[in-house]
């Protein structure tokens, strides 16, 4: 067995993330260029892009979404990085967490000093039904044959969680309301609005059309209303599901001993972990993700930190229930306790364990191949104290986590970043 530590430290010294949303008139390589240009400008002491030695790019299925495979060398060409090695990583919605991890391992091995990692996805060129079909390619064939959809797999896990721990849809509402609370604070979010904003928009529309004005008591009352929050796959409703998005993300990784040449505020990789998971029929516990538990264990072991040391985290919330279950699998809360902590406001931006300060995939957007590095970009930004209005209000912010899930849990990663 290996020693489960990196042979050489790795630091993040630059980053870029596009505004997320639907940009049909653009091309998926343009998104990556936009993120790359932001990254170049973000390196405090500047650097010569010719110093980049290798590139790892996460992408789920440009092949299906825009009919173009083997896109990484085309991106390298666009950015003037030919003939450096460029490698595509695929782990469904965790594709770019894998590119980050491969970049870290490549530097830790001593092969490279400076590596560009990132991810992209363009989903807007397909219809919603086609996107659902494309994402379905990442589910287990047994589930697809039985008639499961992606939201259906997560809905199924939700009923298992509810039955096991006594939770109900209220638990999901709390996640959605919390995430939408952070959304307006993130200028890159696809839906930068609170649930209250959605309610007001709807009321205004009814007023303009001369229709009866809806009388919702509060945000939960709004989410309970099937006219505005229809079911998708019980108990997953529209507001439990992340949107279809376009976007790209990237980070510049360097060997830790070189970091200060690039910035006085490097953020270091404290721990990285990756696990694989079962299809539904083979799972021992339908209310947990073994891939996340394995990834978290590795990251904690490598970093020497535990769940309590991680002050805030991005947690993969493709569907609201996933955020709750993963908060437990990451060890932040005991099994069956996370939904109570969310109800108590603990995961809010001003709570003791802020989760998804970016607004999460639900509000920020989920261009699947870009998401893993987009989450790490958020943690990097927070640790540098540059998150603006959504900055975690803790003057001693030092350690943050990013959890990424691919498919229906087949691939999960957990990364711990820190300021030293």
């Amino acid at each position, binding site marked *: 067995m290996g020693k489960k530590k990196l042979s050489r430290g790795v630091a993040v010294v630059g980053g870029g993330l596009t505004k997320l949303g639907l940009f049909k008139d653009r091309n998926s390589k343009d998104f990556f260029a936009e993120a790359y240009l932001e990254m170049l400008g973000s390196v405090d002491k500047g650097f010569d892009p010719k110093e980049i030695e290798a590139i790892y790019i996460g992408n789920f299925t440009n092949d299906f979404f825009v009919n173009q495979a083997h896109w990484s060398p085309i991106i390298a060409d666009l950015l003037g990085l030919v003939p450096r090695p460029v490698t595509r990583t695929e782990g469904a919605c965790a594709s770019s967490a894998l590119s980050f991890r491969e970049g870290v391992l490549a530097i830790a091995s001593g092969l490279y000093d400076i590596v560009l990692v990132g991810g992209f996805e363009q989903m807007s060129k397909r219809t919603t039904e086609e996107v659902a079909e494309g994402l379905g390619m990442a589910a287990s064939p047994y589930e697809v044959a039985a*008639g499961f959809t992606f*939201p259906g*797999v997560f809905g199924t896990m939700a009923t*298992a969680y509810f039955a096991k721990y006594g939770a109900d849809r209220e638990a999901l509402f709390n996640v959605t309301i919390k995430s939408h609370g952070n959304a307006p604070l993130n200028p890159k979010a696809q839906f930068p609005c609170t649930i209250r904003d959605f309610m007001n928009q709807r009321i205004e529309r009814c007023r303009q059309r001369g229709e009866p004005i809806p009388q919702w008591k509060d945000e939960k009352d709004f989410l309970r209303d099937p006219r505005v929050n*229809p079911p998708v*796959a*019980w108990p997953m409703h529209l507001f439990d599901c992340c949107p279809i998005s376009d976007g790209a993300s990237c980070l510049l990784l360097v060997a830790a001993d070189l970091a200060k040449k690039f910035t006085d505020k490097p953020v270091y990789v404290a721990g990285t972990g990756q696990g694989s998971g079962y299809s539904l*029929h083979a799972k021992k516990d339908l209310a947990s993700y073994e891939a996340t538990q394995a990834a978290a264990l590795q990251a904690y072991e490598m970093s020497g930190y535990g769940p309590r040391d991680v002050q805030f985290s991005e947690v993969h919330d493709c569907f609201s229930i996933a955020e709750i279950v993963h908060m437990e699998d990451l060890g932040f809360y005991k099994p069956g306790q996370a939904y109570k902590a969310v109800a108590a406001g603990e995961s809010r931006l001003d709570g003791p364990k802020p989760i998804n300060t970016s607004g999460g995939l639900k509000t920020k957007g989920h261009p699947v191949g870009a998401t893993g590095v987009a989450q790490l970009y958020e943690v990097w930004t927070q640790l540098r104290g540059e998150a603006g209005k959504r900055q975690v209000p803790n003057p001693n912010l030092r350690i943050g986590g990013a959890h990424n899930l691919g498919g229906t849990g087949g691939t999960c990663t957990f990364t711990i970043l820190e300021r030293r």
Partner: protein
Amino acid sequence: MNARPLNDTSYEQFLGEWKIMGSKCKKCGALALPPRPLCVSCYSPEMEWAEFKGTGKLAAFTSITVAPPNLAKEGYGRNNPYVVGVVELDEGVKAVARIVGVDAKKPEAIKVGTAMQAEFLTKEDGGVRKTSLVFKPR
């Protein structure tokens, strides 16, 4: 029967014969459904076929209102949802399947833990007969 390879194709052939067949490890007795080519408990390659009774209980489910293209063609969707779920069989393994005999429009009334019984649903698609496993409340 034992001559058939332990794979999805054989599993589907057996369903066509109204049999739920998985694998059993000759060494440690671990069961798997669908069958596996090796034991994932003790890693022995010595496997044999095992038949499952088809009784169990509902472990988790969902009622789908936004249907994938193939089921939308059959008329499922917003006004005609359908239920799929995970059934834990009495033998201890789980199966993912369509759940029939429940009201898909009232998912809040469907209870995890409900006793279930397997049925075989045969459909003709482009001249090909295909049998799938479904479950209904017992």
